[in-house]
């Protein structure tokens, strides 16, 4: 076993070789040990095997770094894992880039790395390489950039928005808005942090078998930044479809509703980190919801609406039905969405 070097803190992680070596040996390798990481090469070698692979990357910045229900590490892992799940893949090999502020509290980084390490162990995912850089003292304190690749395991027809058809049902796996409110409340001290927890979770850990084999599933997207509405707008604006959503069907926890009412936010536009929107052939939607609830633990999964041909001569419309009235949902352009993930 390598000799433990004294930890000089997070200064010079980008430039000072001795400092980086210490950090790598003391903080990274013991947590994420695998053959490729141990090689300490400039590039990792992957045995990809036959078949198609899905690949994704995302960067994560959140304040505070630790929030009710998770931290930036769980966010980073679950974020890319959920992205891969939309192509029926799991994160097999990952690259992680850490940008660490010089004055970051060491215990916070320990918590973040421990969470990441646990998730890697539980899922069998390997962080096979990465990079570290310094940020000057101050804010942000930590930025994580994560890339992941995994084999596509879908049996039968492929997934994607291009396979969504008029008549499909829109299914939601669970309540919306908790992640945004948990983060916002713990940052601003709004009082909800004791009762609202982020929904941050690796959805593939439970629902992969369904995604792999359901013949009725046409596409799925995780409702992260911009929330459920962003997913629906993305579909309708790119594929000349219309989506009609019954707002009353969308599950929202009471405390999240309270906070939204207080802050003037729409739960449909809030970021989630453990909520998937599925587009399902209508004949299989009820059975899928039942399976999500009873077999996969998504006890509040439900059908929230349906996909239709565009009826107004223009594509890109998301129609929200509330109390019998229908309105066109507008698209937010940045300022209305707290930048939380």
């Amino acid at each position, binding site marked *: 076993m390598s000799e433990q070097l004294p930890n000089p803190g997070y200064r010079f992680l980008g430039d000072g070789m001795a400092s980086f070596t210490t950090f790598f040996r003391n903080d990274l390798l013991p947590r994420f040990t695998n053959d490729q990481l141990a090689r300490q090469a400039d590039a990792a070698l992957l045995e990809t095997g036959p078949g198609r692979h899905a690949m994704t990357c995302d960067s994560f910045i959140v304040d505070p770094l630790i929030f009710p229900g998770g931290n930036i590490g769980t966010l980073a892992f679950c974020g890319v894992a959920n992205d891969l799940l939309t192509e029926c893949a799991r994160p097999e090999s990952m690259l992680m880039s850490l940008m660490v502020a010089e004055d970051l509290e060491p215990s916070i980084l320990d918590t973040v790395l421990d969470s990441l390490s646990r998730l890697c162990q539980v899922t069998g995912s390997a962080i096979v390489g990465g990079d570290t850089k310094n940020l000057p003292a101050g804010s942000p304190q930590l930025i994580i950039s994560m890339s992941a690749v995994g084999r596509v395991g879908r049996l039968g027809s492929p997934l994607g928005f291009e396979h969504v058809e008029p008549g499909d049902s829109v299914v939601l796996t669970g309540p919306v808005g908790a992640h945004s409110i948990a983060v916002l409340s713990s940052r601003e*001290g709004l009082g909800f942090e004791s009762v609202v927890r982020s929904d941050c979770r690796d959805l593939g850990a439970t629902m992969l078998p369904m995604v792999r084999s359901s013949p009725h599933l046409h596409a799925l997207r995780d409702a992260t930044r911009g929330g459920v509405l962003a997913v629906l707008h993305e579909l309708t604006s790119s594929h000349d479809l219309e989506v009609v959503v019954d707002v009353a069907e969308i599950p929202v926890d009471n405390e999240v509703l309270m906070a939204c009412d207080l802050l003037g936010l729409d739960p449909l536009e809030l970021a989630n980190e453990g909520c998937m929107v599925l587009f399902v052939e209508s004949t299989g939607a009820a059975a899928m919801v039942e399976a999500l609830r009873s077999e996969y633990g998504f006890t509040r999964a439900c059908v929230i609406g349906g996909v239709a041909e565009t009826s107004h001569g223009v594509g890109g419309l998301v129609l929200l039905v509330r109390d019998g009235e229908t309105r066109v949902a507008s698209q937010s352009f940045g300022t209305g969405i707290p930048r939380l993930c």
Partner: protein
Amino acid sequence: MAAQLSSALIVVDMQKDLCWDGRRKQKVAEALPPLLTAIDAFASMGSLVVYTYFALPPDDEQFKRFGDRYCIEGTEGAELISELAPLRGPLLRKKKHSVFFETELDQVLREHGVDVVYFAGLQTQICIMTSMADASFRGYRAVAIEECVVSTRDEVKQQALDWIRTYVGDVLPLSQVTQVMEAR
């Protein structure tokens, strides 16, 4: 040992920067007489009165986010308004909107056997609302004293009071509060 008290009054952020801000100076002046009456009533009946205050570092992140600077630690603006002197209970520093966020208030209330928490001060639509939500989540009955909570704009205050009634607690006029207090 828990005291016999069961009610407490929290006087939220009655600080110079916030109270004498031109946008709400008049509203504070109107709220002061009933507030002083309420403080006197609670203290006279032996109920706990707690004053909270912001004392923020000059580079606090919320200044960047909200575009306003106030109650900077060590400045006169961070002091409580002199009309409240002499204080009738402890002074509690807070860093964020809810009076419970990383403060000892919950512990102090429990040590005094408090089950009903009354709120006064400012502003109704943020610190009072969030503090009352937090109080209700922690198992207290939360009550806003209508004449003693302040917002810059009347319609905003009414919206906030409606929210409080809908979700987290009661809104009572001072006359009713003192009646309830005397009956306990």
